[in-house]
Structure formats: structure tokens, C-alpha cells
């Protein structure tokens, strides 16, 4: 087993061989990957050393202390958080070798082609078709939506229907799609904030070789669970300091602008401050459970807290600002590379946070998950389980 001392030794070796001050950023990142220090819990040869995941912090701290460049993880979150664990679990050796290194270094950006106009919460109802041609390649036709980074991406993780004659969960297959292929058209999707973080992606006769399939034909739903479970961890699981996030913004405004204060706003602010602090403590407790090897079900609820509090706090902040709350910083259609829920002005934060209870699983679906998986309550009677996809109402 690789321990902390061994990781420190290897990290120092990397730093000696490739001094950050004189090494090209990309060269350094590639060398770090090849040294197994990218994600230490990954296998050797794929950027890791098979070490415990918790020891990544040891490497990160050593590298940060020496001013080493990082792979800008926020820019490539979909690749790191969703595509990579799925490729690791279901990919062939050839796929892992080809895809993981440039994914981790950020040379190749990834996006996710899952949601469709007709398949949101009921993702398994998706209708994008993949049909095998005589040569064994897959020909894909359909429309995907809410795709962040599609305009920057080299690769996509894609789920498509390969068998319409069986119930919906069973006829799906998971692919890696080359976004530079002919037939892939990316259009910006403007949202209520005025900007376009997301895209619509139209797939017209896109040819995907069978070697870019992840998992078995018809097993795509199970493969996608790996992706989606990692997405929820990515969205709700990060620990924050007291007054981190949205509550810190309004607290600062409250302290700096005494002329805006009213008794009503004060009571509501204090109530939300308490809720934000309790949500933070819930996250701290969840993380301590993970570290102790006893993952708790609280994770399923963290995103519900996060969404509701972001919405309520930013809404109160717009109100607190009074006359200024009537204004908006800029409606110009832009294409931001990074999304900061706590960025820009209060009006933007208010509007953007509306998406927090929709993206990555709606709050309604998450409540069902808590009720059924944590509390063990019965599922609603299903009318779609044993019906062939082609016979479903739509």
C-alpha cells in the first residue's frame, strides 16, 4: 500500500525532475499524470497509484506549496467528475489509455449528452436513436439539451436508444461521441440570466465506431448510474467555511450598508443565516462520516439544502438592495466558460440559482430518492416498467 510518506517522496521526485518554475504547464501536468500523482486512487498507468483516495490531499498540498500548476478542475468538471469514473469502471483498456490522460490534463474537454427535450427527470425515456449499420458502426440521430461545455468539448459521454422494442431502461447503450465528427451541431441555449452556459446539440447521422461503446449493448442505463451518482457528489458535497457561499454575500452587504436594514429583513436574514450554518454543519458531518468510512445518506439531501438556500438567500438579497435591486448588471448574450453561482450581482445570483433545483436532478426527484432509498417508503405505482419504449405515451 502506498502511504503518505511514499507519496511525498514521489511528489518531491516529480518536482525535482520537472521544476514548476521552468516547466511548461502542460508538460508538467502530463508528467504528473505519468508519475501516478494525478488521482492517486486510480490504477497505476492511468494517473494513479492505487492509493487511498484520502491521500490525494497530501500530494495536492505538496504541489501547491511549490507553486505547481493545476489542471483547472472547475473548467473540466464534467470530464473529471462524471466521464472519468465511468470510463474507469466500464471502459476497455484501450479506451482508458487513450482517453484518461488528456481528460485529466484538460487538453480534451468533455461534455455530457444525456438530457433531451422529451426526457428530463424521466431520463430513461430518451429517444436519440443509435442504429448499427452493416459495418458494425453506430449511426446516431437525435437532439440533446442543457449541455454545458459542448461548444468547447472534444468528447461527449452519450446515451442513446439502441432497442426501442424493450422497456425503456433496457434498450439504452452508452457511447463516447467525438464532438468534432460531421453531423454534430452545437447551438447556444440562452437562459433567463441572458447568457448561454448551455447548448442544444443536434446529432444527424453521426457515425460512432463500436470501439467507442462503454459497457454492453443495452446496458447503458446501468453505466449511466455511475455517471449520475458522481454528478450528485460533485454538486453538493464540497465543504465550505462559515459564511461561505451565498450567505456570505448578503452578510457582507448587511454589514456594509446599514441604511438598507429593516426589522423584517433582519429577522429573515438571521433565519437564513442559521439555516445556512446548519446546512454547512450537515456537510461537515457528512464529510467526517466519509472519512471514517461510514458514508451517511445525508449526501442525498445536501443538494436539496443547497438549492433552496441559494434561492431564498439571493431572493432576500435582491429585496435588501431596494432601489438597486431593480437593476441588473448586463443582459448581453455571453458564453461563460465557468459558472459561479455566487458571482456577478444579486439579480444574476437570484436568477441563476433558480437552476439549482433543476440541474443535476430536480428537487422533486431528489425528494423521491430520499423517501424511497433512505426512508424505505414504497415507490409510486409504475405504468411504464414493462412497456416497450416504442409504446410509451409521449
Amino acid at each position: 500500500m502506498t502511504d503518505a510518506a511514499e507519496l511525498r517522496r514521489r511528489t518531491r521526485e516529480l518536482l525535482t525532475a520537472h521544476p514548476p518554475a521552468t516547466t511548461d504547464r502542460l508538460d508538467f501536468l502530463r508528467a504528473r499524470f505519468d508519475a501516478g500523482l494525478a488521482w492517486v486512487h486510480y490504477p497505476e498507468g492511468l494517473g494513479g497509484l492505487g492509493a487511498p483516495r484520502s491521500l490525494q490531499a497530501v500530494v495536492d498540498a505538496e504541489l501547491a506549496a511549490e507553486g505547481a500548476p493545476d489542471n483547472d478542475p472547475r473548467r473540466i468538471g464534467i470530464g473529471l467528475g462524471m466521464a472519468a469514473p465511468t470510463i474507469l469502471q466500464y471502459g476497455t483498456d484501450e479506451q482508458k489509455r487513450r482517453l484518461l490522460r488528456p481528460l485529466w490534463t484538460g487538453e480534451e474537454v468533455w461534455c455530457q449528452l444525456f438530457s433531451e427535450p422529451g426526457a428530463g427527470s424521466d431520463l430513461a425515456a430518451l429517444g436519440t436513436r443509435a442504429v448499427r449499420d452493416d459495418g458494425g458502426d453506430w449511426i446516431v440521430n437525435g437532439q440533446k439539451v442543457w449541455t454545458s461545455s459542448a461548444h468547447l468539448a472534444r468528447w461527449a459521454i452519450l446515451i442513446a436508444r439502441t432497442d426501442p422494442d424493450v422497456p425503456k431502461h433496457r434498450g439504452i447503450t452508452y457511447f463516447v461521441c467525438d464532438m468534432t465528427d460531421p453531423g454534430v451541431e452545437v447551438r447556444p441555449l440562452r437562459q433567463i440570466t441572458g447568457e448561454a452556459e448551455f447548448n442544444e446539440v443536434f446529432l444527424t447521422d453521426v457515425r460512432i465506431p463500436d470501439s467507442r461503446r462503454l459497457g454492453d449493448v443495452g446496458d447503458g442505463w446501468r453505466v449511466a448510474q455511475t455517471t449520475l451518482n458522481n454528478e450528485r457528489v460533485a454538486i453538493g458535497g464540497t465543504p465550505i467555511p462559515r459564511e461561505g457561499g451565498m450567505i456570505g454575500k448578503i452578510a457582507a452587504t448587511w454589514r456594509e450598508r446599514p441604511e438598507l436594514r429593516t426589522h423584517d429583513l433582519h429577522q429573515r436574514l438571521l433565519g437564513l443565516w442559521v439555516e445556512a450554518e446548519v446546512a454547512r454543519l450537515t456537510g461537515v458531518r457528512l464529510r467526517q462520516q466519509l472519512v471514517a468510512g461510514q458514508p451517511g445518506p445525508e449526501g442525498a439531501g445536501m443538494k436539496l439544502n443547497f438549492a433552496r438556500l441559494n434561492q431564498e438567500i439571493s431572493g432576500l438579497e435582491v429585496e435588501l438592495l431596494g432601489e438597486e435591486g431593480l437593476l441588473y448588471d448586463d443582459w448581453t448574450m455571453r458564453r461563460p466558460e465557468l459558472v459561479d453561482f455566487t458571482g456577478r450581482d444579486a439579480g444574476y445570483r437570484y436568477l441563476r440559482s433558480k437552476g439549482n433545483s433543476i440541474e443535476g436532478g430536480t428537487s422533486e426527484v431528489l425528494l423521491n430518492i430520499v423517501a424511497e432509498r433512505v426512508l424505505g417508503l414504497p415507490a409510486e405505482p409504475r405504468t411504464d416498467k414493462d412497456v416497450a419504449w416504442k409504446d410509451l405515451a409521449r
Partner: protein
Amino acid sequence: MSAQPEPALLYSEEEEALRAAVRDLLTDHCDPADVVTRTESAAPHDVPLWKSLAGSMGLAGLLIPEELGGQGATHREAAVVLEELGRAVAPVPYLTSSVVATEALLACGVEDLLGELAAATTVAVLAVGLHVAPGGAVASVRLDSGLLHGELTGIADASVADVLLVPADDGGLYAVGAADATVTPQVSLDSTRPPARVTLDGVSGRRLGDAEPAVRRALRAGAGLLASEQLGLADWLLTETVRYLKERKQFNRPVGGFQALKHRLARLWLEIAGLRAAARNAADALATGADTDVAVAVAQAYAARVAVHAAEEALQLHGGIGMTWEHPVHLYLKRAKADSIAYGAAGTHRAALAELVDLRAP
């Protein structure tokens, strides 16, 4: 705002073992039906249960140092006991005697009384209204020629106390034998922690020390650990309601399968997950002394709404049976509602936070 030291929010193995022992005892000796019956009698407290918990198990001395005969444990362990007592809505003077009065005696360094409390031969209560928040205004009695005169109301568990710790108008805290006072039970919303009127008619007391710091410390510990009792109440209410809704069938389905109800229970579960974190945080802060005022105020600004919400949801989702005297849910509703006032209402703790975290009123 500066980074906070990270509190320890999990339960240790020893704490889980303590919980299991307390739960076993309560399962055998604190049946909800008996608690209902007992509330209708002249002696609502369960004295035999108290003797087992406080005496045989030694839980009365958790916060008392070993050299005085106690267990030398911390608020973290006392919090686990309170979770279990809350889960059983047990009518015993644990919070009032083994936490609040004990803290006041620790503040004054009263070794002989602490020894008696640890040995469970004496029950003491602080003669301050249960509704008073840490730092709140405290009623006192008159000291006249060395004797105490006056009347104090809302003194929880006074009817089973042997010793009353009484604030007097000279700024002192006095120990008075309950036998020397007139203790009149008040008819109360929550009969499992009944308040009483205490009348002192020229009684001599023993001056223990200054009342203000002792009372403040006692009420802060009471408020902080009350959150764990509220967690226990809420946890039982959710568990019992989920169990019932899986069994109860209407429209040819378990009622718990209807999405409108599932979402309510899922939200409640999430609130309780928050309360567990906040209550553990308060208990840990009381034990370590780090960030204690904020931790206690956050817990008490949050806990009451959750416990009361859990009780109100439990009653509604049980339907007609939840409205009956026979079903124990009303015991929990009444305790949860009384707890929402005990040691300061949520708004009082929010007001304290406004000062503590610099979010000042207009």
C-alpha cells in the same frame, strides 16, 4: 469571517455503547402507554426509572468530576443520554438536575452537593423559569435578615427536587431544602416535565456563590443540550410515522407510497439531519469550550422548529389515531412545543446571534 476549528460531529464507539444501554433500559421500563397513564396521576415523574438511570447507571454524574464521585464525562455523552430520553419522552429530571443544576453547582464549586447529585441521592433544580434564555432576565426572591421570601413560577421538575437553587436579590445563589419551601405543581401543557410554583416564606438558605455567572452557565448548557433532546423527539416521531405509513393502507395502497406524503417526510428527514449536526455541534462546543455561544445559539435557533414540525407532521400523517389520548404522539407534541419555549425561544437565540456574528439590527 475567520476559519472555525472543525467540531467532531460523529458519535464515538463509547457514545454508541452508552446510547444502547440507555435505550435498552428505556425500552424495558418506559413504555409510552405507561407515560400517558402516569401523566394523569399525582406523580407524573417516573421515580423508579430515575433511580435506575441516575443511580444504577451513574448517569446523574456524567458532568461531575471523578474526584467528586461523578463520571468525569462531557456534554457529548450527556447529549446522547438526552437524545434517548427525548426519544422516549421520559418523565425524569435529567436535563434539569443532571445538566442545568449540576452546571450551576460546578460554577459555584459546591463539592458536597455535587457529590450527592453524582450519587443520585439528591435531585436539585435551578429555581429559574424554564422559559428563560441564557443571559435573560431572572426573577429572584428577597433576602431579608438572612431569610428568603418570595415566589418563583415555572420551575420545571421542582416537585421531585430535594434541593432548590434560588437566586436572591443580593445577587447570590442559595441552596434551599425543598422540604422548607412550598412547591405547588402547575397544570402544564407538557405533563412530562411539569413546572411548579415555589414559595419561600422566611426560609434560610445556604449561599453558594454569585447567581449571575452560575445561572448563565447553567442555562447555556441547558439550551445547548436541549437540542439533543429535541433531536431524540424528532427522530422518534419520524421513525414512527414512516413505520406507520408503510403499514397503513387506504385506496388499496400503503399511504406512505403517495408522493405528496413522501415529499413531506423526506423534507422532515432532511431537517432532522440538520438538527443532528447542529445538536452534535452544540454538545461538542460545550465540551471543548470552542465557539460555544454561537454553537448553542445556532442549535436553539434551529431545533425548536424541527421538533415541533416533526410532531405536527406525525400527528397529521397519523390521521384520526394521532388525535387520540391513547396514541403517544401527543406526548411528543406537547414536549416539543414546551421545548420550543424552554431556555429561550428561537427568536431570542437569533437575537443573540445577531450580536455574536455581527449582523446587527437596524
